[in-house]
């Protein structure tokens, strides 16, 4: 065959497609070559290969120099030794060199146990550093969601690739050269002075502790040990599909019941579900969509379409910075996290007869942007935030371990009422395509007055970066766009701006895969299969629910009856809707 080549790796005869790197050729055939700077999410178009660390070097017969496997193309007839003594020696030296400029802080480092450099040092059997040199001393940078500790940066530039190529935010870039080289926001300013969206995708791929999340755990522990506080918790949909991984379960194992049980053991007074608030979001956002659509069909020129989802706080910050002229297009509906907070500190607090200041709302999120979101000023009332703390999936796992809870032995328990009941529509919020599918299920029935014949909208599902579909609303074709990853979102927005695309509604999620691939999830260590498994898990939880449409949630119906009136009522507007800010940079003349 023309398009394949033959080669030998570690004495194994292999055939691979032309153009395959040595690393991929080895991987496909189960041969492990250590790597550090390289990372790749297969089928998702995400790859970082600067060829900088050289940890992946291999011996190619007939070549004088060792070849870095991640950037060297496999050639016909090559004979490769991945673990010759010469290779091992080189790898050990390289590893030592990298460590010689690395702080020895593993004991207190947030990445410890998950750090790829630590793993490499372990695998290479490094016991001593023979090189003595200067160690860099950069300033730590703390933002509302992310901590940068540049001393731990090994210049793999994965974060730069995520932030620039995939997210097209462009906050992080390599600066300086040689020993002083580091990845940094412009002018070495803090992240919170930059256009960073806090999507956390840089944290998700950083191999070391140079990028980590702001830890809300100590504050949560304090609240839980304060007898004057009622502490309640909400869990985002994507968490249940990933938390199990931290306890050694197969990716895609749903642990909804065990998670609820664990939270109860941790001492939360009420264990609620963000999925409930997701159903609420659909009620508001779906109604808003139909309202805009109706006015549009009636010829109202002032109405703006498409409506864009607004449940992802990183996406919100992104368009506030990058598309200031379009800030009136996204739905004004708050994210489920913030809807939950607003309802908890009013409706629920009143029901329980507690002062909002004595009610602590904790959320468990797959997301780092949610840490930032709950700190936004408009989401607090007289200085008391609607959501007090947001823990990542990783932080929850650590807290469960800290409390010595045997996760596997836990029974499956249910969420509490009234803010714990949800439909399948709320569950699929956690994956790309899920929010809009949930919205379609409700909008269709509200618009047409008919019952859906099929509840699954396969045409909205998948992992492709940009997708679209037209859904027949009983004779009215509704065009829907979906994008995940901010680079794809930008593309879609540019197309709308230039008049190339016309949609009625668009769903946007900042993280590749949606929240299942969020920056607060268990590290995927470059394995895209994990994301797919989580996605599948969410769809199967939806499938297993009796109620699968948001407007059928009895507790949502009750909430409107008892408290809110109807969707988009005055009260709903006050509590569940928000506005956006132009955060773009403008130039003014110097005086």
């Amino acid at each position, binding site marked *: 065959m023309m398009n394949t080549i033959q080669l030998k790796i570690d004495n194994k005869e292999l055939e691979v497609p032309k153009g395959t790197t040595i690393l991929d050729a080895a991987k496909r055939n189960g041969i492990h070559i250590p790597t550090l700077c390289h990372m790749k999410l297969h089928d998702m178009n995400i790859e970082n290969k600067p060829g900088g660390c050289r940890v992946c070097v291999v011996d190619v017969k007939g070549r004088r120099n060792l070849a870095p496997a991640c950037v060297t193309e496999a050639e016909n007839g090559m004979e490769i030794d991945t673990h010759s003594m010469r290779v091992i020696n080189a790898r050990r030296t390289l590893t030592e060199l990298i460590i010689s400029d690395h702080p020895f802080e593993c004991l207190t480092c947030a990445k410890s146990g998950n750090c790829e450099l630590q793993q490499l040092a372990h695998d290479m059997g490094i016991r001593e550093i023979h090189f003595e040199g200067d160690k860099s001393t950069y300033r730590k940078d703390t933002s509302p969601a992310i901590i940068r500790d540049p001393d731990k940066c090994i210049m793999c530039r994965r974060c730069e690739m995520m932030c*620039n190529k995939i997210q097209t935010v*462009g906050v992080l870039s390599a600066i300086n050269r040689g020993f002083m080289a580091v990845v940094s926001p*412009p002018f070495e300013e803090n992240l919170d002075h930059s256009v960073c969206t806090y999507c956390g995708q840089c944290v998700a791929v950083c191999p070391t502790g140079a990028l980590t999340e702001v830890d809300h755990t100590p504050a949560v522990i304090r609240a839980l040990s304060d007898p004057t506080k009622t502490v309640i918790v909400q869990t985002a949909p994507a968490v249940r599909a990933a938390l199990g991984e931290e306890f050694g379960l197969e990716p895609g194992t749903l642990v909804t019941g065990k998670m609820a049980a664990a939270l109860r053991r941790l001492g939360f007074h009420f264990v609620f579900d963000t999925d409930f608030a997701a159903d609420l979001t659909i009620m508001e956002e779906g109604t808003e969509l139909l309202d805009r659509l109706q006015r549009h069909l009636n010829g109202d020129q002032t109405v703006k379409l498409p409506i864009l989802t607004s449940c992802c706080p990183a996406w919100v910050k992104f368009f506030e910075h990058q598309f200031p002229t379009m800030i009136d297009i996204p739905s004004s509906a708050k994210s489920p996290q913030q809807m939950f907070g607003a309802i908890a500190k009013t409706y629920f607090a009143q029901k329980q007869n507690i002062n909002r200041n004595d009610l602590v709302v904790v959320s468990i999120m797959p997301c780092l942007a949610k840490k930032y979101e709950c700190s936004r000023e408009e989401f607090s009332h007289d200085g008391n935030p609607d959501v007090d703390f947001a823990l990542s999936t990783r932080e929850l796992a650590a807290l469960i371990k800290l409390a010595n809870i045997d996760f596997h032995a836990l029974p499956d328990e249910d969420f509490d009422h009234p803010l714990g009941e949800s439909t399948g529509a709320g569950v699929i919020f956690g994956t790309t395509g899920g929010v809009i599918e949930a919205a379609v299920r409700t909008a269709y029935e509200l618009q047409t007055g008919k019952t859906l014949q099929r509840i699954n909208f396969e045409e909205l599902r998948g992992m492709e970066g940009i997708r679209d579909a037209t859904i027949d609303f009983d004779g009215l074709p509704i065009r829907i766009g979906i994008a995940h990853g901010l680079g794809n979102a930008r593309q879609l927005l540019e197309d709308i701006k230039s008049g190339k695309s016309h949609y009625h509604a668009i769903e946007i999620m900042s993280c590749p895969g949606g929240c299942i691939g969020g920056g607060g999830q268990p590290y995927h260590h470059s394995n895209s299969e994990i994301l797919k498994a989580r996605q599948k898990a969410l769809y199967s939880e939806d499938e297993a629910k009796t109620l699968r449409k948001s407007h059928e949630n009895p507790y949502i119906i009750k909430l409107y009856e008892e408290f809110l009136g109807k969707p988009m009522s005055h009260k709903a507007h006050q509590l569940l809707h928000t506005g956006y800010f132009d*955060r773009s*940079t*403008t*130039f003014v003349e110097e005086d």
Partner: protein
Amino acid sequence: MPKIKLSEYATTTIKEVCASFNHNEGELINVLHQVQHKLGYLPAEVQELVAIELNIPVAKVYGVVTFYSFFTMLPQGENPISVCMGTACYVRGAEQVLDEFRRQLKIDVGETSADGKFSLNALRCVGACGLAPVVMVGDRVHGRVSPSDVKKILAECKDGCLTHN
């Protein structure tokens, strides 16, 4: 909404330079080169506008500015002094020369003297290794400089033998 202040002159200059390179991001280095030539230095505000004009993240611009020692974010003195620290110059005592400049001018590398007359920089090899150690004042090259020459070089500058516009 963050606001960035820039003089009209700087704004037009940057826009013109970027336009002359067709706003091509591949020309970033040349753009910065010309802008620095015209404005003297590349403060953050200037980099922000270059980024917008070339439609690239400002982080990229800052990355390039910090990568090449030729670019500077600080206003240069009337007499920008650069001491070559390439290998040849270094082994022939460039460091002592640099130290002497620091001592006499009472400024550090990367700084400008209070009266605005001098600024001091260390450069990587300027390619005049035969003359090592090399010191450049503006465009003028001084070769085989020893610490004892420093006083003379500074005096020459003060006498105004160096033309600057």
